[in-house]
């Protein structure tokens, strides 16, 4: 059922299994114990991997394999996979899917990809178009750094508003029926651009998208923030978080139960990540390491997962374009 921009499911599909994989910095962060796979060598040199792009793909594959193992189904039973990442042309996902041989639709939503793939998977499952759907994404600090910023050996100081791209992957298996965390509704966001040009302040660039999607969702569903145990945004970091809370208070919907994935994945004070984590893998990892397990354990009952993405490219940035943002909202939990 469609209400405004929100798609409400009468027969909610469920997230039946999930898994997260991460690198060294993630293994030193507060969520380390919840990862399904952690490596100290994010280059996978021992596996003969020769570059960061393929290393990201390997990390993604670990997440998929572990997710399917937890779901206890072979990959041939997956009807379709939605996947994306930050690499140009989403190659990390493409090469993962080359190995897996699952019907595949690639998506790009920058750091919002986890919510986007999860939302698409839920729609496919809820409408009966698929029984078992994989939603996954990843990001790799080294692959992102060399593509978007500078070589890894280049010496540069990070500004305090910059965010650290997570080396992480997350995979979720969505089922049309069965046991798991229900997906109650999804809301695809509208692109918001408030003329932010600072590539070192992504949280600020993405905040309006998060606020816009939340406002659309609350209006459509007739809910308010206090109806939820927690509202998780993806990758706004400390700056974007402060801005979002200020903006939502302005709108008359103060967020008292808000947490940001960018501030949860790392210890922002002690891990030298400036304003927090970012990258598609950041919100994916927090979803799979914290949000879904807490929902499954009953520690949280109803939450919103709003992953945000910055939709510029290196080219548009150099051409002086401002940074458009997007946010997709997935409502998770509720009575089974």
């Amino acid at each position: 059922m469609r209400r405004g921009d929100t798609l409400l499911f009468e027969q909610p599909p469920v997230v039946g299994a999930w898994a997260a994989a991460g690198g060294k910095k993630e293994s030193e962060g507060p969520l380390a114990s919840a990862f399904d796979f952690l490596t100290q060598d994010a280059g996978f040199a021992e596996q003969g991997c020769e570059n960061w792009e393929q290393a990201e793909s390997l990390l993604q594959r670990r997440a998929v394999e572990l997710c399917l193992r937890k779901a206890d189904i072979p990959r041939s039973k997956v009807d379709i996979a939605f996947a994306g990442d930050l690499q140009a042309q989403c190659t990390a996902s493409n090469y993962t899917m080359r190995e897996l041989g699952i019907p595949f639709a690639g998506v790009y939503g920058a750091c919002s990809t986890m919510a986007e793939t999860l939302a698409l998977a839920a729609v496919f499952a809820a409408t009966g178009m698929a029984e078992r759907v994989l939603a996954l994404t990843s990001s790799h600090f080294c692959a992102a750094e060399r593509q978007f910023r500078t070589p890894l050996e280049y010496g540069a100081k990070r500004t305090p508003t910059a965010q650290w791209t997570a080396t992480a992957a997350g995979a979720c298996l969505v089922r049309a029926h069965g046991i798991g965390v229900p997906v109650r509704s999804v809301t695809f966001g509208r692109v918001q651009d408030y003329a932010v040009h600072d590539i070192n302040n992504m949280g600020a660039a993405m905040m309006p998208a998060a606020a816009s999607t939340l406002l659309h969702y609350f209006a459509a569903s007739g809910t308010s923030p206090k109806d939820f145990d927690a509202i998780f945004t993806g990758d706004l970091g400390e700056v974007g978080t402060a801005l979002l809370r200020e903006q939502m208070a302005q709108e008359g919907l103060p967020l008292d139960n808000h947490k940001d994935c960018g501030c949860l994945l790392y210890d922002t004070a002690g891990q030298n990540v400036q304003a927090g984590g970012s990258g598609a893998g950041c919100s994916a990892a927090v979803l799979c390491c914290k949000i879904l397990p807490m929902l499954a354990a009953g520690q949280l009952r109803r939450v919103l997962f709003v992953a945000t993405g910055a939709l510029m490219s290196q080219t548009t940035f150099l051409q002086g374009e401002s940074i458009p943002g997007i946010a997709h909202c997935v409502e998770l939990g509720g009575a089974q």
Partner: protein
Amino acid sequence: MKLDPRRYDEMIGRASPPSPVVRDCAWAFCVGGAICTLGEGLRQLFLIWYDKTLAGTLTSIALIFLAALCTLPGWYQKLAAKAGAGTLVPITGFANSVVSPAIEFKAEGWITGVGAKIFGIAGPVIAYGTLASFVWGVLYWLLGKVG
């Protein structure tokens, strides 16, 4: 949404932590000063055997060599993360900006990666430096003709 770009710009200004300018500058001063002092030491050493011009050139080459050496294990990047302009502005920063893309883009091949990307960061410095020196050369020549 109750937000317009101009007001948002002000909001961002308030929410964004400023750079710790005093600490940044202290680091830049000490590390930049230390690199220059090392350079002066090398220059004095070379002056024992060579004239001023050659000693200057050898000093640059020696510092570039040291910077390349420190770039390999990632030390230059680690120092620069704290020292900022202190490691950027000396000739060692220029060397780092040439060596780091050479290492980074080896994955894309010796010609299309290393060779093509080696001046990706330092190229503008050489391009505009050369252009500026050409303009000055022409002016200097004209001044000579007039004077």
